[in-house]
């Protein structure tokens, strides 16, 4: 369990799945859905650390991802800074922003915290809409192509590999973090802040740190998405996107490493599968979510526990 690099079976399985998947992708549209799934999964991994482990809800992560994306895009398109460096600046800026707002906001708990993050998210979304000189307003703005040290990302497979590698690497770090004393501190904040405090943990500091981590991951995914799609609009930072991300994490399974990924992939693919229902699409989408939450309140990831338990029970 305490092996040096902790490359466990599940990460290898994930890597194999992600490697095999492109062989079944027939066209660019499917690639696009796959890439968006991966980027959503990336944001959800960070959001899951905040919500599922530290127990702090955020209804603003769509907005943080969007704002981060805008910063990167504006720097590279308007000021000619290289995409990689502009993403780096966006990450640093958003980290500082997240740290500053985390101090007052994360003093709140439960519903009040949800309200506060919601408020910040909506403000960001309004600013992006109104500052049209910089952001192009509600029409959005087009984004230059993405290149790293002269190597251009043009074809979908390149993007897919980039996102897949990033996701695997993030999950590996995430698992290491969760299984370290740092992870235990996060769990204790969810379990009992008083208890954490009573053993010498500066709760507000760790809340800020985990908040910053999740915003940094969201910024990275948000800016990559903008570069990938070649276009960014305030809808990336909208309230509904933030809600979607929270639903992904909860539906997949709060506090489960792979729950967030399962949720992100399913909820990104589902609307596409349901397009044939036309007018009833949203209705069916909602019904499926309600159904899943009723029968699997601990998320889809808990389904695998049940299967595992039954398999073991039979073996005995």
């Amino acid at each position: 369990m305490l092996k040096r690099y902790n490359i466990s079976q599940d990460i290898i399985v994930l890597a194999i799945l992600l490697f095999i998947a492109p062989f079944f992708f027939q066209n660019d549209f499917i690639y696009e859905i796959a890439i968006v799934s991966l980027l959503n999964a990336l944001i959800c991994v960070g959001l899951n650390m905040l919500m599922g482990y530290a127990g702090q809800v955020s209804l603003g992560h769509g907005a943080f991802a969007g704002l981060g994306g805008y910063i990167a895009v504006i720097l590279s398109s308007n000021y000619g800074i290289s995409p990689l460096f502009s993403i780096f600046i966006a990450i640093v800026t958003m980290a500082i922003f997240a740290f500053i707002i985390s101090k007052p906001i994360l003093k709140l708990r439960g519903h009040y915290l949800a309200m506060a993050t919601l408020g910040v998210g909506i403000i960001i979304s309004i600013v992006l809409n109104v500052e049209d000189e910089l952001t192009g307003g509600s029409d959005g703005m087009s984004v230059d192509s993405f290149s790293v040290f002269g190597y251009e990302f043009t074809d979908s497979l390149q993007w897919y590999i980039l996102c897949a590698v990033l996701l695997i690497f993030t999950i590996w770090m995430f698992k290491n973090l969760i299984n370290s004393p740092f992870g235990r501190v996060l769990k204790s904040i969810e379990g009992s802040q008083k208890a954490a405090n009573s053993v010498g943990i500066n709760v507000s500091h760790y809340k800020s740190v985990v908040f910053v981590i999740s915003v940094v991951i969201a910024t990275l995914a948000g800016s990559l998405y903008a570069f990938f799609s070649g276009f960014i609009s305030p809808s990336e930072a909208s309230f509904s996107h933030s809600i979607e991300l929270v639903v992904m994490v909860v539906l997949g399974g709060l506090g489960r490493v792979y729950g967030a990924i399962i949720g992100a992939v399913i909820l990104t693919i589902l609307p596409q599968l349901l397009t044939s229902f036309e007018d009833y699409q949203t209705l069916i989408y909602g019904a499926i979510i309600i159904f899943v939450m009723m029968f699997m309140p601990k998320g889809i990831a808990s389904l695998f526990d049940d299967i595992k338990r039954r398999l073991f029970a039979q073996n005995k």
Partner: protein
Amino acid sequence: MLKINNITKQFGGIKAVDDFSFRVKKGHIHSIIGPNGAGKTTLVNMITGVYKTDNGTIFLDGADITNISTDKLVHRGICRTFQNLEICENMTVLENVLLGFDKYMDKSLLKSCFRAKSILEDEIRYKDRAIHLLGLIGLEKVAHQKAENLSYGILKKLEIVRALGTSPELILLDEPVAGLNPKETKEVSDLIKTVVADEVTIVLVEHDMKMVMDISDYITVMNFGKKLAQGIPSEIVNNKDVIRAYLGNGVVC
């Protein structure tokens, strides 16, 4: 060791703790008793930095610790348990005890992300010590169970053991045996005695008089935020003011 001078805490118009002073000697079990609402828990909360004092000073070994926050006090050797259980139920029993060793552990982000060797070694070292602590209360067997599955009595003891992980010089126990049966109460008082044998000082807030009289070296009695009496157990038992505070102002036969 602990010196409290004239501390006051006011909630609205009510003085929960009113110009209260007392001293705790090193290695003592110092009990604070008093009727419900006397201000005992408020006093504990003030000593441990949960509430700011309106007035007065608190000294630990000559150093002023008035209004220092709870988490910083742990690094100075003061730890506490809670009247209403504060256990992380989402974690295993072992993890809860490991949490007690938190102040010794390296939690730097980069090292944690990349599983630095020092972090892995820490984890193994403190796991051994945590299991040793669990052994004190005979809980090694349930080490890997989720805390939420265990009984109230076990969790009460777990809280004390978690506090021991911080290697405190002073532990404040806020009603450690409230709601426990006689057998469990006996186990907790035995645990407290073992702890004191290691030169840890204990401030005990408790309603179980049998236990208090049994293990205390010194007792302070509180009523309406003020000191009513102090002394060794045999003095307190016979103190008329104390009897009146507990039993009312009737005719003593």
